[in-house]
């Protein structure tokens, strides 16, 4: 990734996700820090970097989960490629588009994780999952995308200069 900041940031996001973030859960929803950081990075980063971050972050996240390692990676990789395709279609990804990406990405990530968890033997109830997990998570992610995007934008140019 050529970034001095990326790995510690990923690890910090994952650790906060498993320790601090559960304290502010509403129903089963909580801000998904890794997803938000990856989304923010992908908007301006190169696809190779973004995919690497999706793999490293996703697997790190799964190490602190009951789901099999790699579960989070699938959704994150799809989001990275989706944003890459979008960047080729539009001149600039503006704020409203970022909010749209947060909503679509949250749904995609949670549905993919839910499907893989279902195949791994966990009980999956799509409607309840949507109400208790996905909707509150979308609300949280919409609130948190602002500060996370701001933070990533401050770090990202430094990384690219460091390369």
């Amino acid at each position, binding site marked *: 990734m050529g970034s001095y900041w990326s790995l510690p940031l990923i690890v910090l996001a994952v650790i906060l996700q*498993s320790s601090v973030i559960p304290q502010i859960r509403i129903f089963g929803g909580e801000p998904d820090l890794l997803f938000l950081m990856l989304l923010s990075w992908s908007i301006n980063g190169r696809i190779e970097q973004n995919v690497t971050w999706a793999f490293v972050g996703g697997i790190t996240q799964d190490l602190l989960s009951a789901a099999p390692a790699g579960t989070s990676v699938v959704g994150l990789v799809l989001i990275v490629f989706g944003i890459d395709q979008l960047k080729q279609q539009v001149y600039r990804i503006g704020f409203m588009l970022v909010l749209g990406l947060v909503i679509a990405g949250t749904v995609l990530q949670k549905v993919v994780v839910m499907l893989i968890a279902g195949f791994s033997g966990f009980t999956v109830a799509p409607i309840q999952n949507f109400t208790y997990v996905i909707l509150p998570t979308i609300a949280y992610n919409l609130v948190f995308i602002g500060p996370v995007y701001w933070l990533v934008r401050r770090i990202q140019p430094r990384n690219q200069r460091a390369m």
Partner: protein
Amino acid sequence: MNRGSGFSRGWRSNRMAFLIVCLLIAGGVIAASRTGLLAPVEDLLATPLNAVSGVFHRLALTVNDNLTRFSDVQTLQNRIGELETALALYQSELVELREINSDYQRLTDLLNYTTTVTNQETITANVIAVDQNSALRTITIDRGTRDGIAISMPVVTKQGLVGRVIRVSANAARIMLVNETSSSISARLQSNRVEGSVRGTFSGNLEMDMIPLDSQVREGDLVITSGLGGNFPPDLVIGQVTSVSLSSDALNRVAQVHSLVDFDTLEFVLVVTNFQPVDLSVFDATTP
């Protein structure tokens, strides 16, 4: 240099192939993880993560606890009033229970009988992480195989049943909480021994279903493990009945159960180490 750039451009231009390769690699990792091939690597990588996560978890709980303490003064005053009323009721019950207890002790001595609950051997463990995936209700503790923890061991607190061990590494273990939707526990009502099955719900509460229609279930009834199925020892407290309704097919009754354990702020748990779960899968095989 030029060749490298050309290769890079070609590779990047064929994004569909790149995506498929990435998904295949991710699928391979998932398959390897599910079959346990990656278990040693996962345990190795998770060890430092668990350690740091444990420090942050304790820190977050401490901050949360202090914030709640300051903001809940009014709530606490109301609660004190309720508790004083409850205390008066319980004091009268206590006298009665002491009488029953003394009878019980005498009978126990006579029969040289001790319950499995009093014979529990436990190990205290710190909760160091909560599941990343908020749809899965599991926690991680800082005890593993080195401390004698094994898969399927029940996990409790003084407030009642917490869950059971579903995965163990050398120095950590993952616990599936009783309110996880995949969790199902054979249970009974303490008052009238009515059997049922306690499951987790998506709202994070517990539900006891399969209760016969003709059985008496009242709010406040204590729900305990029955020991049927061999997965949990009997007589562990699961929670209290808060309401009763008919099941959707109207063939059984369903009781909403409130656990006294606050699963969001667990700091310490006890792992019951001397319980051996019974493997009933041998009876699943069809007889010739």
